[in-house]
């Protein structure tokens, strides 16, 4: 065939039949402007229907298709094969999560942690008639905090989520900090209590894996550092003066 072929090397695993994950290779004809996700769906449609992966929006906004592609965590849908500059594309599921099938991992613990940090606005006063006022400056604090798509790439890249299963992880702490930074939120005390535990912010060693892995170029490390500073501020006051 005249077309250029790329080899997809995909980690396969079915916990019911396989003892260990293994790699299987597929050859896919390369089309101009093809993304990794398109390659995967080509395999699913034409070569091996048993392969399983999550996908939805194909525009990099839903966060379904986070996976480990050629040495880094990326969204399959926005990764151009041409940009990888390699004839072999190695794909692994998100690390530190239980593999349910091939590239599908068990996200339930992730959502469980998400729920545990009260990820919703807790305003101090009853809702006013009109909107709550917030200056554009206060709104600017949220730039870069509201863009998280919860794809789980940072969570998988973080070395600490691998060693400590109970560690909340960068994505969750990022979410917690999004509310800690919101001028309309009045539950900072509660948020610090929820994230300032031994399996919370103190488990972070500022490795920056999350920041490097983030497909949206957000800064979870910075968010965790922000929570640490807030926690220290409160913690030292309590220790030295007994209360705030």
């Amino acid at each position: 065939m005249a077309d250029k072929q790329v080899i997809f090397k995909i980690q396969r695993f079915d916990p019911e039949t396989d003892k260990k994950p293994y790699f299987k290779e597929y050859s896919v004809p390369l089309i101009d402007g093809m993304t990794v996700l398109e390659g995967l769906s080509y395999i699913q449609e034409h070569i091996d229907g048993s392969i399983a992966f999550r996908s939805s929006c194909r525009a990099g906004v839903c966060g379904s298709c986070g996976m480990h592609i050629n040495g880094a965590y990326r969204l399959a849908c926005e990764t151009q094969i041409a940009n990888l500059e390699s004839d072999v594309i190695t794909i692994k599921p998100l690390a530190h999560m239980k593999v349910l099938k091939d590239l599908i991992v068990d996200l339930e613990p992730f959502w469980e942690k998400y729920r545990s940090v009260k990820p919703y606005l807790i305003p101090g006063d009853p809702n006013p008639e009109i909107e709550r006022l917030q200056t554009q400056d206060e709104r600017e604090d949220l730039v870069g905090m509201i863009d998280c798509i919860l794809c789980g790439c940072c969570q998988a890249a973080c070395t600490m989520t691998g060693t400590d299963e109970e560690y909340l992880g960068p994505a969750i702490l990022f979410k917690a900090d999004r509310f800690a930074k919101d001028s309309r939120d009045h539950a900072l005390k509660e948020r610090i209590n929820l994230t300032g535990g031994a399996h919370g912010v103190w488990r972070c060693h500022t490795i920056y894996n999350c920041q490097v892995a983030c497909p949206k170029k957000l800064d979870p490390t910075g968010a965790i550092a922000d929570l640490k500073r807030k926690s220290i501020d409160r913690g030292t006051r309590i220790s030295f003066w007994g209360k705030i």
Partner: protein
Amino acid sequence: MIYHKVLVVGGGLAGMRAAIAVSEHYTNVALLTKIYPVRSHSGAAQGGINGALCNNPRGLHDSCERHGFDTIKGSDFLADQKASMLLTAEAPKRIRELEHWGCPFDRTEEGKIAQRPFGGAGFPRTCYAADKTGHVILHVLYEQLVKHEIKTYNEWMVTKLVVEDGICRGVIAMELLTGKLHPIMAEAVIFTTGGSGRSYGVTTNARTSTGLGMAIPYMEGIPLKDMEFVQFHPTTLVGSNILMTEGCRGEGGYLKNKLGERFMQKYAPDFMELAPRDIVSRCITTEILEGRGFDNSYVHLDLTHLGAHKIITRLPGIREICINFKGIDPITQPIPIQPGMHYFMGGIDCNIDCATDVPGFYAAGECACVSVHGANRLGGNSLLETVVFGAIAGEKAVKYIEGKKDARKGEKALNSALEQQESKINNLLNNQGKEKMPDITKEMSETMLKKVGVFRKKDELKAALDKIKELIQRYKNLGLLNKNRKCNQELMWALELEGNLLVDETVVAGALVREESRGSHSRTDFPKRDDKNWLKHTVATYSSDGVKLSYKEVDTSIYEPVERKY
């Protein structure tokens, strides 16, 4: 058997809003979604949500009535006017409610919600959060879902709606990871499954936006309304057809053809680029067809004159998508765009209460047709529709249950439906047919795109209808590669393909018969709007040998239809 008072199917904005509305009355409400709620395609909405808040200095004289009139005018007077007025009257309340829940809208100088101009609107009234409005609202609603501790069935897919004696009893759902079928009994079922974008090859919609959600009630005899009105978004990125928000033009972007002209001057001199979507799509297509497009397939959306600061603060997502998918930076280069299928104005036929003819079955969001958008939807009204009618559907479902005498009925119907679905899926898996799914999908999307696209013609529509009918027949001989039940995504796509085909049939059949041009339905052989014969809704009903069409009155009690000019 799993039992819920109310089961919401679909985890997008409308679904979550409905579930939250129900949970204020009953705790036994569940939300069932094919993916995860935050993965829903509502999150891809970019531009904003419309509401007459009058926060913009240029919008001080705006009002809900003006918003309603713009919506009706935008709809080419096919909207049910009371429904449109309800939508716009509820808008400020719902937007402020979102704000109270923590939605990070951009702000004005005084700290109120900022508003930007949008297509077809007389005043700037689109509230936005950069170009990620859908994303932030989706996350805010999911946060509320978590707060209300609503049970969600993630990665479950409904395969059948169970209707017994004309009353909705529940659904049969498949757990995608295990492939197991479960009957779910519910007093009321709310469908909020979105549109059928995958019917078209060139679409802004997600891979998961398929027509199954509309096809399931359709197969149970619940009609689909106004299906021929399919909106094409004028600006989608060439190649991947990812949405380039209308906000680009709202912020002042220009559309330019090969000659470098702002061609909208010729077509809509007053509104220019901010004419409604159907008009801009037609203009772009005309330019391309008349040879003034690049490579005969696209034109340019030029943002370069806006300056780096405005693009980075107001349209960061657009810039990111352009860089990731096309390798161009909108600050320095124009974006190549073409129209792409975007939204279904039509859907499950329901009234202003989101109720259908089957008691206990409700629909909201894109999959429903309350008929607020008529023949063409204005940008920013879809997010509004989801939160307004999501809430209404939830509340009306609660009211229905309160007035209901029997409960926990229909076990027998559910069990027999379960058996029927089991055998259907087993047949699909064991079918040794020669037909391959990618072929059918490809032929379907190409037919729809080429023959039922922006411009439509009688013989093309006829050919398309034949083709879709042929594909429905060929679908019966589908042979799948993967015969396993567990985690079989191919099976999921196959089930959805059937839904897509059925929905497509209603689209083509409706378009073939409607001999006029109205809103997004543009017939080259009938270029004029014909209020005398066609000011009516198309209602498509399922029968085993194809679509049965009938017609319904349009509510024009408030404004007299006039010619639509921009």
